[in-house]
């Protein structure tokens, strides 16, 4: 993969050390209805461009890392 992920514990690391954890999404509140939950669970933005996403550093420190990545160019920026 064409980029490195900045892990707060381990520094800039190869993404093969991580497992992709999907887009960052906010879970619905306790009173949300079924539609809202299904929307949250089963639909993704599938951004073409920058998105906030989760990566799990499974071959490293074992932390979940939030990354802002361009899904087209793999460019990673600070949020």
């Amino acid at each position, binding site marked *: *993969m*064409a*980029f*490195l992920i900045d892990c707060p514990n381990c520094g800039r690391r*190869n*993404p093969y050390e991580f*497992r992709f*954890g999907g887009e960052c999404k906010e*879970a*619905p509140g*306790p009173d*949300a*209805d*079924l539609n809202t*939950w299904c929307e949250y*669970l089963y639909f993704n933005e599938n951004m073409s461009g920058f998105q906030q996403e*989760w990566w*799990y550093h*499974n071959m490293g420190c*074992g*932390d*979940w890392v939030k990354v802002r990545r361009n899904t087209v160019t*793999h460019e990673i920026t600070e949020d």
Partner: protein
Amino acid sequence: MSGRLPDSPTQIFDPKKPVKIHFRGRSITAFEGDTVASALLAAGVDTFSRSFKYHRRRAPACLSGQCSRCTMNVDGRMHIKTCQTPVREGMVVEPQGPIAFDPAGAADAFSWAMPTGFYYKMFYKPQWFWKLVKEVIRAMPGNMAKVKALPAKAHFDSINLSPDLLVIGGGLAGMEAAITAADAGVRVVIVEADPQLGGFEAFQAEAGFRRTQASISRLAAFPNITQLTGTRVTAIYPDGLAVCMQESPSQSAQDCVERSYLVRAGATVIATGAGSMPMVFAHNDRPGIILPEAAQRMVHLWGIKPKGRVLLAGGDDHIGEVALALYKQGVDVVGVVDFREAGLRKDLQSALADHGIPVWSSYTLTDTRGRRRVTSATVTSIDGLQSKRVRCDTIVASSGRYPRHKLLGQIGARMLYDAALNFYLPEQLPANYEAAGRLLGLEDPNAIMRQGAHAAINALKHLGVDTNTAKVAAVEPADEAPMPVTLQPVIEDVQLKSKTFVCYCHDVSAKNIEQAIDEGFDKIETCKRYTTATQGACQGGMCEANFAHLLARKRPALSARVLPTTRPPVTSMSLGAMAVGYHDHPQVSPLYHTQLAHGGNSLRMGSWIRMVDFGDHEAESLAVHSTAGICDVSMFGKFRVFGPDAEKLLNRIMTRNIEKLNGNSTFYYTACNEEGVLVDDGMALKMGEQDYFVTTTAARAAVTEEWLARWCREENWQVNVVNVTDTKAGISLAGPMAREILSKLTEADISGEALPFQKWMHMEVAGVKAIVSRVGFVGELNYELFCPASQGPYLWDAIMAAGKPLGLVPFGIECLNICRLEKGHVLPGIDTDSFTNLFEASMGWALDRNKTETVGKAMLDLTTHQAIKERVIAFSIEGRSPVSEGALVVDGTQQLGRVTSIIYSPLLKKTIGFALVAPHDNWVEGGTVTFWYDSGREAQASFAKPPFYDPKGQRIRM
């Protein structure tokens, strides 16, 4: 010395150190420093391989790892480029397929029957014909061999390097770049494909050799330069990883046959140099027709005289220089053909004339003859009017320089054709990459060195090194222009005949390419795929430029002379080298060997090797019910979860409320994902305030840490998760006699009052500190013991010794399966799938409705009153049934679901199991279930309500 030229300073072999290798049953004496190919050439071997399609004789053309004609089987390893492989004592070298007499060589006469795309054209209809001949055709290709296991397990290894600067190419430019960077204090790795540094200059007679020696000794003075010679960079990935392969890094075959270096550098200088393009003329593939660099390497590096009379042909002054150098070494040079009108530089012309070597300017090669080896060449004036035959045994021919650009393509730099120079130059390189040297078309050694230094200075700037120094200021500017190349003029009707090869690996001729263009495949990418040119083992290293030029000639309108896309690997690499580090490591329990000694039959299941049974799983299950059994449960995931927020986190992932757990009670939990799908179950024990011992299913052991971290990733909770799966052994002791056996080994009070069902305690068993809990998995009085892994085997043996007189037997997972099905325990992931929610798994009781934060609870709450889409049902069949897991549950022709677990219980004399099915009216007591198995057989079972055994659970509470 045997047949070699007199010693010269440029040679890289040691004539005092003979090495014996075996080739086709005979012994050949080579010398240390030889490659396999140089040893064979010195021994007079003419044919190295047969070609892919026509089985024509082939011999090395480049001797620099570009072409694939020298590939052979070396020590049992296939497709080894012998020109890159150092000789080793006792090495066994075999050609791949017959080379002396090859019956399939008849294919050469039938080339007319094999036009481009003949596979598609000839075998399209009738279809039966293809079926008839495909095996024959697939066995046909030359220089191919059946894959055989290596005689001994070959050893490969891999080394990670992370220098500041990686220099690819150890020629003048690369060495100068490495020296400049090392002088500024950064750590440098320099990679060179040849066994020695120096690159092109290393075999440019003595003048070039002296230049390289000066650089090599300067370079050697720097301790911060790592030299990797005999190593090729096969790929650069966009994240900066450069993969470098080193063939035979040590002298012992047992040691390591191929090594990869995975280099991640801060910056990279690419100085891979330039190679020669083969000349295009009819029958340009005969053994004895070589590139200038091959001739120079033979003479200067290995002291091998090219065979017999040597004819040289080309279109630059370099070919004249090579002719002179060969002449000085005593080679019989019969002439120099130059296709330029201006001809060779004046001084070269006069020097050659002095030695009586004829020079034909404005002439070109059109054809060759010869069977085992080239015997004569047809030299024709470029206007096509005059032509003569020249007798020769070796032809050194090239149509000009061509950049070794593959790695540039991989970092995303396109090669642009410069029409004035007839040379490809890279467009802007990505940051952190620099290019230098002959790769950029430079020829003057001093210019190349200056330019290498400047590439390093630019790289240092990328690295953030201060370049504002006197040393940097002292480097002379590098602004030399690339040297133009003269394109080979082509005399269409005589030079592009049917056997004018462009792609040697796949026998693609100019005629084939023309035909493909006529059929409409006139873009380089489509033409390449249709003809398979540039797609052979050399990956376009030999043919790419000629292929692009030929296409451009035929389709001037499209003539951007683009090159095909380059992808890793640049050169072939063995699967073994790629597989280094990726070994299959099945997990074994600490009790694995102990159980094997007790007669356990093991089986790979998921990541674990587990014991299926100890001979007879049905007898084992009867023993568990009548006396006692012992089983290894070490593969449960085991975790210590502690910290101020441990309870909050566990409460979030568990559907039951862990706050209700107190003292020495055991706590069965289920866990769901956000969809409410059942993902895990297990046991939690409270070891102290905010300190829990949690077990999971074996399959979830690997992901539980991630799962727990996932559910507090947005919070700043103080909680630690320690995976103790491998540090603790687990033993399940079950059966009516279990208490009696255990009481022999411990002083602790384990009476039904002191340690009742669903309670646990710390105790010493046979002197081993263990966590002992009362569980109900197998439906009998059942203790689960967790102790340090190292003491597991001892504890197992102690329990076995104590229990043997009472009828204790070891049992495996088949027996465990019988017992848990008798009790109707659903296994998440086995009896459920990734859609089965908690209700559908018939475990709705495990959901605490009053908790707010449980993962999956929101969806479970919202879907409580929805009709369920599938559910786990239990069934039973009288007697033994041939139905197995995966059988379909059907209603007439409609599929309702599938059988997830099924086994015969000798105790109940019934076959029992679970099925995951859609809702149906039959799922009531007394209803029948129809199975469809073995592709068409049907069987009936009756719907049942578990548990099948001891429904009141009295036996587990004993």
